[in-house]
């Protein structure tokens, strides 16, 4: 804020200047964490490759009928990672698979965090019997084995990418709901909320204008950590044959590999790359999430390097 007169010209410009300031502060602190930068860099590269997939390998890489190679070739100059049982290039499939893993991971995490934030803010704001009932339901979901619930949902619904997103999203929100509720209670006990109520702010105003901006940092950290969980769950569901059969995904590639007998015939070059890719993306998101968490809450004691 260099010019006070300019910043004070309207409340919204003042608010924006403050937001810009806090983002800059966040970044200054984030970039001192070497592991966080490493995770962010890895994610940038993977996202770029996924976005450029049509340019890099072309759209016909998934076609079974006019596959370029012969079945189950070892890695060679033409196919750097070898070919699958239909003769498709594994490198091409791996690059296409990044798209589905990232899409499902991001959307499922967004869905789960959205549900969790909504439930948490409502339960924290309204309190009373409503809060008790909602938190009981949350606790119940927290106790449920997430993977089993997701598997069951994916089994009883039709096979599609949306089913997978839904199954992961509706089973993994309770942690966020608990954290957001605690934060909402902390925010609402501050005097300025009382002032806002006295000035005539309704429930909606308090929740969206005062509580929501205050829980956003927490929500951001939860989302980043949730994505790696979602990506692992997506791979698991696809491996169990519960994913969309028409879409190439890393978990699905591993299932194909197992069905093609890659394990008993020792074709490690078929099995290794998809798993490494899953682990790499999940690890990158975990590193970013832990860094975000420790920037926003230095008390957690995550090492800075």
């Amino acid at each position, binding site marked *: 804020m260099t010019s006070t007169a300019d910043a004070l010209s309207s409340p919204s410009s003042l608010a924006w200047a403050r937001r810009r300031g806090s983002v800059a502060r966040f970044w200054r602190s984030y970039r001192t964490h070497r592991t966080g930068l490493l995770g962010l860099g890895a994610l940038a590269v993977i996202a770029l490759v996924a976005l450029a997939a049509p340019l890099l390998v072309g759209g016909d890489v998934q076609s079974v009928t006019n596959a370029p190679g012969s079945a189950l070739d070892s890695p060679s100059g033409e196919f750097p990672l070898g070919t699958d049982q239909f003769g498709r290039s594994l490198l091409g499939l791996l690059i296409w698979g990044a798209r589905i893993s990232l899409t499902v991971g991001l959307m499922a995490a967004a869905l789960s965090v959205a549900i969790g934030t909504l439930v948490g803010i409502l339960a924290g704001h309204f309190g009373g019997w409503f809060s008790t009932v909602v938190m*009981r339901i949350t606790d*119940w979901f927290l*106790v*449920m*084995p997430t*993977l*089993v*619930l997701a*598997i*069951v*949902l994916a*089994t*009883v*619904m039709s096979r599609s990418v949306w089913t997978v997103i839904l199954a992961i999203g509706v089973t993994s929100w309770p942690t966020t709901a608990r*954290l957001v509720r*605690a934060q909402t209670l902390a925010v609402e006990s501050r005097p300025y909320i009382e002032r806002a109520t006295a000035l005539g702010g309704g429930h909606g105003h308090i929740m969206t204008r005062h509580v929501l901006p205050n829980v956003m940092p927490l929500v951001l950290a939860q989302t980043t950590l949730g994505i*790696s969980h979602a990506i*692992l769950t997506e*791979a*698991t569901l696809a*491996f*169990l*044959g*519960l994913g969309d059969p028409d879409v190439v995904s890393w*978990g699905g590639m*591993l299932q194909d*590999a*197992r069905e093609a007998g890659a*394990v*008993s*015939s*020792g074709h*490690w070059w078929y*099995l*290794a790359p*998809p*798993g490494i890719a*899953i*682990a*790499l993306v*999940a*690890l990158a998101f*975990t*590193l970013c999430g832990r860094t975000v968490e420790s920037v926003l*809450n230095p*008390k*957690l*004691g995550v*090492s800075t*390097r």
Partner: protein
Amino acid sequence: MSTASTAPPRGGYGRRPALVKSGPSGPRARSARAYLLYVAGKLGGAAVSLFAVLVTSFFLFRIIPGDPVRTMTHGRQVSAEQLASLRRQFGLDLPVWQQFTDYCAKALSGDFGTSYQFHAPVGDLIAEKVPATLLLTGVAVVIYSALGLWLGTRSAWHHGGPGDKVSTGVALTLWSVPSFWLGLLLIITFSVGIGPVPGMFPTGGMESGDASGFAYVADVAHHMVLPVITLVAVGYAQTLLVMRSSLLDEMGSDYLTTARAKGLRDDLVRRRHAVPNALLPTVTMVFINLGHVAAGSILVETVFSWPGLGGLFYQALSVPDLPLVQGLFVVFAGAMIVMNLLADLLYPLLDPRVGR
């Protein structure tokens, strides 16, 4: 997360946390009554949770997939009369609430209907597979809890040092690895064999079949090595991280400074004073992990063809054999609820500050 962190123990000049509060009979009787009240509350909560699992399983499998009879007869020519008689046979012509009460009554007596693919009662199929799962996952949980506690303690005590960085990094990496993939790689490397590595372990199953007595035990142990390694590798990170952060919380405490000031060796300060206090959150973790193991073993049992509940679940999914999936869902969720209950009941005994 100030709500999650533990408060410094009060008046604890390096005392071990007392398991049973001793004192005059008055406060003791009161605290016993408080504990009974606490137990009753937790038991009631668990009963409600179990009932909610029954409700969920009933509606999940009856409402969402549409007509169960149509699913059962999928791809076969059936007349309208056959459909009607099947409906009667499964009680599907009754009103929903009556179906529900029937279902609950049967489920409570362990009857989950008949499996589509094995044509045997679901309850029997499940009961037969329980020991194998308990054996595999029990051994794995004991090993990875011990490993996680040990490495977590070391990490926190020397936090920021090279050992801490390497250990935390390795744990986080293994945590990000899909367990089924790690299992497949272990099979390829140590069962099938790559290059100079010979195939040392069986590719799957639990026994070779012809051994008895001590040889049988050795045979099962031989089959268990790879699945246990997989479960441990993927699982120990969580225990490590919880132990590490809870010990780090304790490390700034005044009572540790006092213990050092009184001249105790570093090793004793850690073993006698810091670790027992830091163990509390980790104990809850171990119990929750025990609840998770049945569900968590689905992938590992599938990959290693281990004849347990997880493998059965996979077989049921691929059909899908809805009664079997439903029965296993209730068992997995029930195990989780019971383990949480045990953790809740044990916690106030370990930490007198809770639940009083």
